[in-house]
């Protein structure tokens, strides 16, 4: 009860400070709008978002070039030419997920009406959804191309017939042309000129799509600003010590743990209020502004658990800053430095796949990384609780670590 009294008093003080309310509750919404709207393409724009399709062209002829041009232009798939040996080696090493092989006699074969088979080889660990998407694109382009060739051949055949019988008008009858086209179409369906043979991936693998800033704006900004509350917690403790009210609290009949709990609780509650406001704005406000709205994902309960852990971790971080910083300037400097550096490193402002590519495992040393991973998995990728257990355990670990160091270094006197 006494911890609640301290928390209630601190929240009264917080809500009487319009600057603090703006900084912690309203400013994040501005960031969300900017990141979702104006900067939304960053991350995606740098990367060609299309699925890469390594191709080994053993034919090198006109039809093969036409086929590849159409696949690349179809959207969703990006053609990348490789030599056969290189492609197969990379596929073995899991450096590429698939390779499309165009046979050596492709152009000559289809010119003479002989069926040709394209081979699409997927790595066993390749993403099944991506493999299916690539197959559909290649299948579609190959079918269209084959049909075009077959119908063109039929019309050419009719032209030749007409040339052989100049006195007969029967060759130009509409019924005759329709029958010929239908016949070619049916033949294309049952005996496709270009077929695609695919080796399926063995299992569904980790989804590695690259997300842009727009996709991560709501989770990223939430994580960044919730950790800013830590600075508020530290400043509140410093202010209490400065005016002497902390001595008064220490003189009251309650344990030091209750006192610290009471000082952590407002940060936790403020964090939850922030999250509620940012999420509500992400879901409703962004839609009203004509931007892509956020969702709570397919497992809102898991999202709820992650945000509870996130708010708890932030308030424990506040105790740590209060324990380490000795002056108001240190709280401001240390807090700002830690929160922004950790936010940048943890993927709140830069997509994680870019950070991981540049820094390797370094981002894992900050709690922001784990919070961002969990929220992006749940809210953007639609995953469930079982998929974020590691991230939640990491957040809990950081919370315990921050609190333990804070308690150890905290000067009550």
């Amino acid at each position, binding site marked *: *009860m*006494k911890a609640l*009294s301290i928390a209630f*008093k601190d929240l009264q*003080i917080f809500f009487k400070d319009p600057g603090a309310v703006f900084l912690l509750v309203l400013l994040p919404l501005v960031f969300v709008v900017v990141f979702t709207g104006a900067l939304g393409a960053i991350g995606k724009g740098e990367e060609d978002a299309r699925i890469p399709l390594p191709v080994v062209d053993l034919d090198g002829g006109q039809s093969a070039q036409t086929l590849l041009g159409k696949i690349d232009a179809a959207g969703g798939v990006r053609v990348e030419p490789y030599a056969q040996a290189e492609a197969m080696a990379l596929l073995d090493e899991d450096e590429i997920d698939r390779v499309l092989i165009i046979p050596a006699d492709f152009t000559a074969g289809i010119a003479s009406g002989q069926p040709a088979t394209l081979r699409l080889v997927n790595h066993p660990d390749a993403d099944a959804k991506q493999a299916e998407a690539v197959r559909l694109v290649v299948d579609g382009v190959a079918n269209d191309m084959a049909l075009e060739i077959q119908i063109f051949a039929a019309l050419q055949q009719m032209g030749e017939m007409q040339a052989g019988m100049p006195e007969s008008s029967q060759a130009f009858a509409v019924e005759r042309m329709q029958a010929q086209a239908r016949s070619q179409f049916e033949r294309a369906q049952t005996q496709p000129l270009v077929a695609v043979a695919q080796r399926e991936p063995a299992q569904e693998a980790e989804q590695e799509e690259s997300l842009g800033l727009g996709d991560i704006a709501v989770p990223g900004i939430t994580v960044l600003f919730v950790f800013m509350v830590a600075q508020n917690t530290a400043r509140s403790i410093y202010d209490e010590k400065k005016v002497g*009210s902390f001595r008064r609290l*220490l*003189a009251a*009949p309650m344990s030091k743990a209750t006192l610290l709990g009471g000082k952590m609780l407002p940060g936790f509650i403020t964090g939850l209020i922030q999250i509620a406001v940012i999420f509500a704005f992400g879901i409703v406000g962004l839609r009203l502004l004509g931007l892509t709205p956020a969702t709570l994902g397919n497992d809102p309960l898991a999202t709820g658990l992650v945000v509870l852990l996130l708010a708890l971790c932030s308030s424990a971080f506040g105790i740590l800053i209060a324990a380490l910083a000795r002056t108001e300037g240190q709280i401001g400097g240390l807090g700002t430095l830690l929160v922004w550096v950790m936010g940048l490193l943890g993927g709140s402002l830069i997509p994680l796949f870019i950070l991981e590519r540049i820094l390797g495992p370094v981002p894992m040393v900050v709690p922001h990384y784990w919070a961002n991973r969990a929220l992006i998995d749940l809210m953007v990728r639609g995953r469930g609780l079982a998929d974020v257990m590691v991230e939640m355990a990491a957040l809990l670990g950081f919370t315990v670590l921050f609190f333990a160091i804070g308690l150890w270094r905290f000067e009550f*006197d």
Partner: protein
Amino acid sequence: MSEPILIAQDLVKTFGEIHAVRGISLRVARGEVFGLLGPNGAGKTTTISMLTGLLEPTSGSVTVDGLDLKTHTNQVKAKLGLVPQELALYPTLSARQNLNFFGRIYGLRGKELRQRVDEVLHMIGLADRADDAIEDYSGGMKRRVNIGAGLLHKPEVLFLDEPTVGVDPQSRNAIFESVEALNRAGMSVIYTTHYMEEAQRLCHRVAIVDEGELIALDTPTALIRSLGGGILIIGVAEGRAEDVMDPVAQLPTVKSATRSDSQLKIETHRLQEALIGVLDITNQLDVPITSIEMLEPNLESVFLHLTGKKLRE
């Protein structure tokens, strides 16, 4: 002395190499106003911090109403009220919100809390400004709320740590009257100050603390009586104090005399007679006098007598 409410036994506090408190023992009687007098840095606040459970003593013990502070910490703390030297309040909250909060952390709830807050607001004369933010109050009003916050739970022992620092004379008088009223109501008060006139006016007994040690403990009257007549401090021309030292020390009204290059400190049974004798000697020896200070017997001169320095040095 009636039954003690607070007993401190051999309190010691060291911070690394610094010995802040060196074995202070004292007993405070129920219903007593007990003064802790000493200059800044004497160890008063450290002593108060140990008596209220804010600081753990390096050694020694504190019992309140028969309960050991170390083993019954929260029970003891509930019997104590602390009014820190600082304005330990939340400036953006109103007086009522501040008092509500401090009442709640001492376990007051609901109707009892509302009643006590109203009583205290009346007691400190701020009922009509109760809902104004503290930051809009004058310094004296803030001091009154600061004291009020320590009274909400009706403590058996109230600690007032230098409550009049930076306070205007009117507010200072109001604080004195409050302390006297609380004491009349039966509350024990431990009052720290470096203003001897406050201790002399308010305290039944006074403990004089210097450099972490308790150097005297008695009623103000007994302490003053121990000094006798008073102290004369005579300033003379640089290097001439030595010339008059011996004849002055032999005057019949002088108890003892000490000197520096340009100053004589003379303890005497009778101030005026001693002053006349000293002036005769300086005239005869042609020693120019630069200043004369006569300290009537009071706690200030007791402190000077005991430590060789002034309270406000």
